């Protein structure tokens, strides 16, 4: 019996024609492997009590609280809708790097589409922002069935280009998002870590839950080059000729520190950080989300 295709494998997925299908394969494949359904609907999220003031709807009075305190309290709900999720997808030129068939942006797009698919299936609101040195596309959060197609089309039409200004963009986006929700940042984070962290902290300050999906290419992590190479930066006018074997050890150490720095700082600011390389099976990202969602 032939093996069933592994739809978590980015390379396998790249052979599937549309991003929608890819997202569906990933999600359905994952869910069919779980014993219990991850879809846990909820409608109202309790926020706080406040004293009744005239003009408030009487149906919102907490009669149990009245029984206890002999005063009218209004139950306030932070959201009366489902989860509001913002997918912030880095589309700078550096995301276009690929060591195999799948670029970092492709991988990010698969991941974003799969997440959108899951969320929309749960009636959550999904918004999308693609950015480089500026906002490229921005889709407000919606949860109607057509919205998935819109999200996917946006991802498909995005070409990674331009410099990265991640820190600045996060600030910008944080200031734009009026309502709190879940912010998932999908990026290679190749910017000044301090600026990036300030942007993330800004989001946290706005009381968003923040997930960072750090996507790097296999080459960026392992640095498998062996012959004399002229490295040309994808975003800046920067080039260097070197023997990769000479610097491999030092490079890997730097990357390790780079990743470790993000991990450490994210932990400090209660940001969920996950590292991906373009060869990591895509279910890892979904599981991460679902784990967070179920927590």
């Amino acid at each position: 019996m032939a093996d069933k295709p592994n739809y978590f494998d980015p390379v396998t997925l790249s052979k599937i024609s549309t991003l929608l299908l890819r997202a569906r394969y990933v999600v359905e494949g994952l869910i069919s492997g779980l014993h219990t359904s991850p879809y846990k609907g909820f409608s109202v999220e309790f926020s706080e009590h406040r004293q009744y003031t005239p003009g408030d709807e009487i149906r919102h009075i907490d009669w149990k609280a009245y029984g206890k305190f002999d005063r009218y309290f209004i139950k306030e709900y932070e959201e009366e809708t489902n989860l509001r999720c913002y997918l912030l997808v880095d589309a700078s030129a550096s995301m276009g790097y690929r060591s195999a068939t799948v670029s970092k942006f492709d991988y990010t797009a698969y991941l974003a589409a799969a997440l959108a698919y899951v969320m929309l299936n749960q009636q959550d609101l999904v918004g999308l922002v693609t950015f480089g040195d500026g906002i490229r596309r921005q889709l407000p959060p919606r949860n109607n069935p057509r919205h998935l197609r819109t999200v996917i089309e946006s991802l498909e039409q995005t070409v990674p280009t331009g410099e990265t200004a991640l820190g600045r963009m996060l600030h910008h986006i944080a200031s734009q998002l009026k309502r709190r929700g879940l912010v998932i940042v999908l990026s290679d984070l190749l910017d000044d870590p301090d600026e990036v962290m300030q942007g993330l902290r800004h989001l946290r300050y706005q009381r968003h839950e923040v997930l960072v999906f750090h996507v790097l290419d296999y080459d960026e992590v392992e640095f498998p080059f062996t012959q004399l190479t002229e490295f040309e930066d994808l975003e800046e006018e920067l080039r260097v000729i070197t023997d990769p074997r000479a610097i491999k050890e030092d490079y890997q150490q730097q990357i390790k520190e780079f990743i470790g720095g993000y991990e450490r700082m994210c932990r400090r600011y209660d940001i969920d950080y996950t590292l991906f390389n373009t060869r990591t099976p895509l279910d890892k990202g979904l599981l991460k989300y679902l784990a967070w969602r179920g927590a």
Partner: protein
Amino acid sequence: MGWLGFLNPAFLWGAFAASLPVIIHLINRRKARVVRFPAVQFVLRSERRVARRYRLKQWLLLALRTLLLFLLTTALAEPVLQLGEESPAEIDQPRALALILDNSLSLAYQTEGTTRWELAREAAGIVLRELRPQDQGVVLPLISTAEPPQALSSDRELLLQHVTNVSLEYSAGGFVAPFQQAYSLLKASSASKKEILVITDMTRTPWVGFELGALKVIDSQVRVTVVSVGTAGASGNTAVREIRVEHPPVVAGVRTKLTASVAHFGGDDRSRVPVQLSADGRVLEQRLIDLPHGTTVDVSFDAIFEQAGYRAASVKLASDALPIDDTFYFTISVRKPLRALVIDGDPRTTLVASETFYLMHALNPERAARPGPVQPRVVPLEEAEGLQLGDFDVILLANIRALSPSFRARLHEFATRGGGLWWFLGHLVDPAAYNRDLFDTPTRLLPARLGLRLDREGAHPVTLRLHERSHPVLEPFIGQGQDALAGVRVRRLFSLESGSLPPTTQVLLSLPDGHPLLLAGSVGRGRVLLLTSTADADWNELPVTTGYLPLVQTGIAYLAEREEQAHLGTDVRIPDPIRIRLPAERKEGSVTVTDPQGKESRLRLEEQNAWREAQYAEALQPGFYRLRAGAEQGLAAVNPPWEESDITSIPWEELREKFGGAPLAYVRWERGQRVQPVLNEPMALAGWFLLGLLALALVEGVFANRLR
């Protein structure tokens, strides 16, 4: 001083391969792969931090690899270091040269129509023509009968003339004497550069016994160069080593078996090689033999020599590259049949009952078929007394009761002149009378005093014991032939009185209990044998054993041999002299020797004890030399020295050992070339290069591994 050379210089082109790592490096540098990469700032930072150090190591690695390839290609070119070669400043200095020219027989070996001797002279000419006016030289033949030169000469033409005058000798020689002369002459020279140059075919023979350290005069500053004119791929040489008469003596008209030992030195195997036996110019027999290389093969011939006297015989092999030793010359002394007088002391009317029945059969076993080497005549004692004893070579006396005084006197005279006597005893023998008449008398005829007659009825068969194993009479019974003396029952015999054996008497055979059965003694020049039992089977079963016939035959041959015979037949190897010996009573004052070319030489005979002797030392050519002493004709066969037939080369390592640590050069000279000595054997450096290469490869491996 020295120089570095290469045995395979073509491989040096491979040294360009040493530049490969650099070329590869440059090509790689030009072909640096361009990669558009997101994390270039990390690359740049690493490059600034570590690449410089790494680059330095890379350059070192590049240098190592370049050196490695250089060593490999250079090692393949087989580098040699020649130490001691003269510097340009030394070239103009006067030179003293002693040229030793091997003119031994082996240089007659020829290849493609040219002998090694011709090559040797040609090489000597080349060497001498290169002498300059300030140089001196001397030519020393390996074999020379002339007075050795007393000084070096600057006259180049004279030296060349010396070479022309040296001839190839049919002889062997040794290098000890010429080296000694060379060192002595060079010692007297004031030249700063002294050299001994030996032109030889590198056969082992002249070097046997040579050790440089054993010479009386040596000079460590004298450079020795050995020039080999031995042609490579020599096809070997075949020669006759010796010829043997299987059952001497050779008697006229009697079939004789001769065996020739043919040796094949070196080269390839030879098959169906014709070997021809000739005598007096007539081919007697021919055989075809196979000769594997490095072996000696025996070839047997059956031949009948019709005439008595010295016969000129030869064994001739098919011609090879050294023709001089293809014919082996030898003389055969063919004698007339032995005349044996058998005196029967107990004659009977029937032959089989006769005392001499077995004896007659043993003396002439094939008398009905063909003539034998012995012509016996059986007579009773009475008839014998009327015969001329001088007509016989040997007299056998079987069971004689008593001899008349006159016959005893005639017998004594016969024996004293060299005639042989063989006593057989029996029931008619009175030991007391025998002792009185034949032993205790000035005209002694018995070799021992007889004792009691021993009756040993019921004696068991025994194996006779041999005492004088080297005695010619016992020769058939040495080794496997000893079985022929087993199972002999001796029922009666005479004992011998203890202590009665004269010093000249030897016990040849005895019973296991010690009683002698056969004794050998002498009377004057004559030889005497005594069997202490009967000649027939009355007292013992010896006549019916297989040992009886050979015992009688060898006994008769022994008795018939007369030491005082003239030695006018001999075989010698060059350069041994031909020795001629005549009995003292011969009156000739000289002998005449005629060499193969017909040149006659008269030699004066000198008194030597009971002999008159002469030596002919001019037998330096192979062939037959005719000898004449009065009316008697003799013959000497002269052959080349056997050692010269062995053309096996002496290995260079063995030769070096003979020179110890002295400077020694070797040149393998080919026609048309200069004779350029190469001092010492060049030191091969390939091994060292490969060792260095191995060490570098090890360092490179470790280094490259650390850089990876």
